[in-house]
């Protein structure tokens, strides 16, 4: 919450020279940045963990590498969807 509080304080401090359109743009941009930044954390950790485990599995059992790879791509596709939804929210907040 402190991040949000500081952002609003900065906006309030700078409010004198701003029009309503500027304010809307500022809040849209900061909201968009926050949305994508937060949405990227979880999938980043998840994909790192997933690929690390897949590499370990392939190193332990090289003959299963093909199967592990396919499963890894599937897992990445599911994990990555969350980050991509965050990106869509970013686009919607920033441009729509």
């Amino acid at each position: 919450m402190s991040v949000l509080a500081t952002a609003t304080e900065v906006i309030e401090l700078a409010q004198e020279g701003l029009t309503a359109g500027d304010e809307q743009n500022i809040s849209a941009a900061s909201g968009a940045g926050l949305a994508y930044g937060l949405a990227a954390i979880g999938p980043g950790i998840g994909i790192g963990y997933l690929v690390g485990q897949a590499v370990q599995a392939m190193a332990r059992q090289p003959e299963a590498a093909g199967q592990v790879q396919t499963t890894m791509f599937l897992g990445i596709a599911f994990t990555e969807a969350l980050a991509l939804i965050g990106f869509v929210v970013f686009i919607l907040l920033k441009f729509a």
Partner: protein
Amino acid sequence: MFALVFPPIGNLVEWKDYFGEGEFYAFNKIALISLLALLIPSVLFILAKKDMVPRGLQNLVESTIEFVDQQVIMAAIGPDGRRYMPLLLSIFLFVFFGNIFEVIPTFHMPANARMANPLILALIVWATFIGVGLKHHGLGYIKASLFPPGVPGPLYALVTPIEFLSTFVLRPFGLAVRLFANLLAGHILLVTFGVLCIAVFQLSAIVLVLPFSFGMLVALTGFEIMVSFLQAFVFALLAAVYIDSSLHPHH
């Protein structure tokens, strides 16, 4: 700073109609790319000869089919999934050629970065896997997917809505958004470095930065070729996985 003006998003993804503006047959760059993505693989497949010993074009076509057969169908469904080969191969090739126009000069636009294409493809997959389930298991398919066996009775109040959402709503939504957002993100990334290159080039004082931004543009173009292929593969693979979950619901 640097006279850097990022174009508004509408300029990046919306294109003027070539003809038929405002009519139902309006034809713009996205429609052209979609048409090419349909025609190029069809022409390649028609032109390929059917010799015993493959040469040239026939090699390319046969290895494409073998890739989809081995990496998508055998990996996700098994031998009885071979009858879905036409659907999965068409989806793979249409998505791949729609994506690859992202890096082809004079086009520079992935057709799948507009929501319409991924949405229609996802709805086709959605209708297919529900149809396959109903055909092979009748209403038992709906029962098996909404009421998974081995759950204690009262928990069904919690499990059934979640299963309904994840199977019948979130699957096509996720499929469409995954393709759309990946391609849109890649397109915006390329535009960002393209704009940076132009701005730095016009501001010839900073010659030191230009090789870096241009190098990034080249590297990201290579990365986007990989993403185009990978997203087509993932789309076909997920379609196969969903069909498999309707074909063999209990494993």
